[in-house]
């Protein structure tokens, strides 16, 4: 019993041990702060880079990397070029060059097709795919840790695994 008491007293009486503990705690705090700061910096940098990328994509300047307006412009340009190549005049010239000639009423043989309804005009609406579009943001970007845990548990149960 006395030996134990003496050892405790010796430890307590060693000030460098106390100081080392304090230094250790202080360093631990610093490491935590540095980790938080590093994570914050990492996220901020990634967000900034993504924002810069958006700016580049939205940019109107001509550069080596195609951006959104550039693609739209090129699409529009190509569509107009295609329309020029398939214009009435050029199609007539091509048809005549291939030996075709304009049809006259006597050239036709009409066949009655019950229920047939010819298309009267174009429909340029984009047809619905029937399946919902993928979400723009992945769940990882807007769910909490508990949401994530719950989702993982649910998915593992659905997959037949053990939670």
């Amino acid at each position, binding site marked *: 019993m006395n030996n134990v008491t003496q050892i405790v007293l010796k430890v307590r009486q060693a000030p460098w041990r106390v100081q080392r503990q304090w230094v250790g705690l202080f*360093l631990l705090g610093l490491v935590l702060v540095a980790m938080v700061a590093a994570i914050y910096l990492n996220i901020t940098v990634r967000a900034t880079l993504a924002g810069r990328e958006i700016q580049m994509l939205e940019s109107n300047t001509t550069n080596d990397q195609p951006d959104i307006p550039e693609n739209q412009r090129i699409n529009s340009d190509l569509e107009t070029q295609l329309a020029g190549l398939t214009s009435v005049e050029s199609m007539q010239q091509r048809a005549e060059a291939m030996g075709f000639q304009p049809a006259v009423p006597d050239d036709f043989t009409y066949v009655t097709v019950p229920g047939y309804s010819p298309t009267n005009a174009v429909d340029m609406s984009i047809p619905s795919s029937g399946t919902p579009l993928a979400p723009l943001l992945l769940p990882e970007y807007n769910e909490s840790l508990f949401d994530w845990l719950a989702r993982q548990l649910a998915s593992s149960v659905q997959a037949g695994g053990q939670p």
Partner: protein
Amino acid sequence: MRMVYFGRYLVIAILMALAGIAIPVQIVRLQNSQEVAGITGQGVMVWKTFYPARGEIYDRHGHLLAGNKTVYEIGVDLTSNPDLQTIALAAQMSLGMDISEAMTKMTDVPDGTRYVVLDDFVPVENAEKLMQLQKDARADPSGRNLDALNFRAHLMRSYPENDLASTVLGYVTEDNHGYMGVEEKYDNVLAGIPVTLLVPADPRRAPEYPQIPPGQTLILTIDREIQASVEHILDNALISTGASSGTIIVMDPRTGEILAMSSTPRMDPNDYQQVNQIFPGETPFNRAISQAYEPGSVAKIFTMAGALDSGKVTPGTIFLDTGSIVVGGVTIYNWDRGAWGYQDMTGCLAHSLNVCLAWVSDRQMGSDLFYSYMQRFGLGHLTGIDLAGETPGRLKLPGDSDWYPVDLGTNAFGQGISATSIQMVMGASALANDGKMVYPHVLLAQVRDGHQSNMSPQVVGSPISAETAHTLSDMLANALESESSDALVPGYRIAGKTGTAQIPTAYGYDPDNINASFIGWGPLDDPRFLVYVWLEKPQTNKAASVVAAPIFKQVVEDLVVLMGIPPDSIRSGNGQ
């Protein structure tokens, strides 16, 4: 020994503490530093110009009538000590620009100017020549320098079908504003006008960028194949008849959809700078809607429709034509100054007897009833067609300072009133569509964000009953057949009426020139088309039955092919 270690520990602890503190301090400093904010744009708003594309225009089958093509703005960065002489020389070689003009543009600028536009709306091929010169100059050791040249690609209006349907489409100038036709009428919808806005320069606020919507896509009722056919026929008609100008309209009388509308002159809207040369002075851009004229005998269909509908006459009503009639103290004669004897109402239409129609309006209907029907058919009012530049024409009414009693007689056969071709077409739609008059229009649908909104047909009135419409159509068809008209199309029963009208001048009617018109619709049992032909001042003949009726026939012969309309015998099930 322990003191030595303590000192070392202390130094290490202080260094690590300083390093640890430095990280958040640096973060805070970076977040708030003016210097860094200047680089990242934090808190800074900058002016940014967005260039949405102007909406495209398609025909009813999805063929592009008006799109956009790439052109370049070529500018010079004056802050980079540009080699102006070399740039001016390059501009001359690739753009055809005068050297002195280029030098003036670059040097005659206010102090402090950083950037000057050398040329804009430069075609791609010319811009590419200049880009190649810039590349060559970089590789050239002689020191010539074109690095100050900047190229900005953007879109401008382009019409791949050139002058096809140009009087319907209108044109767009370099400032992106539409003029005439659809381009002006729907300018705010097509828009795509560049917008300059203050936006955050901070990349972290990029999602706050405004989304400037592009112009809407328009689908017209025009069928480009029918339009091309009609324009071809009209151009040939002007050559063969010597007419000074012409107009042809094709409309679906059931819906009011304009399938084709052509008038002369036409211009290629890609080259709109020629507009003042092609349309000098008062020349209308689109005669079909902008030039009112005295339609003449084609207007007799409205007079007869009103008389039949009001019960004042029947198809079998007999009129004794003595060759003249006095209305309001003025004697009115037939077109041939002849007396045609006993005629029923079909005969009056078949021989286009002015005296008979004046008798119908003056002796049978009276002014109140007659003008009531003329107004019901829309004469004297805008049709409201969705094209810029429509004029209302003029229908003088009793009580107007320039109306005289004789007008009741002359108006009955289309003289003394002025109407546009589109007004005549709208009025006649009631005859071809069971008495229901439809709103003529060229817009079939609008497309935005992948959704298409279709226009619904609009009935603007029912000036006559369905029974009257059928009766008159039958009378007109019989009239054409009895006269073996040149408008008849084998296999299809057609209703129609010619119009040979004198042209008023400041000194009375022009003795040398006439307006020749023809209006007709078919097939009679289920009208799918209504065609109006107007030739101004034909020289080869002064009768519409000779110059205008064959043009109508040509149009219909193409229409039945392009619209896939089988002959009457096949549609009725009696064909082979």
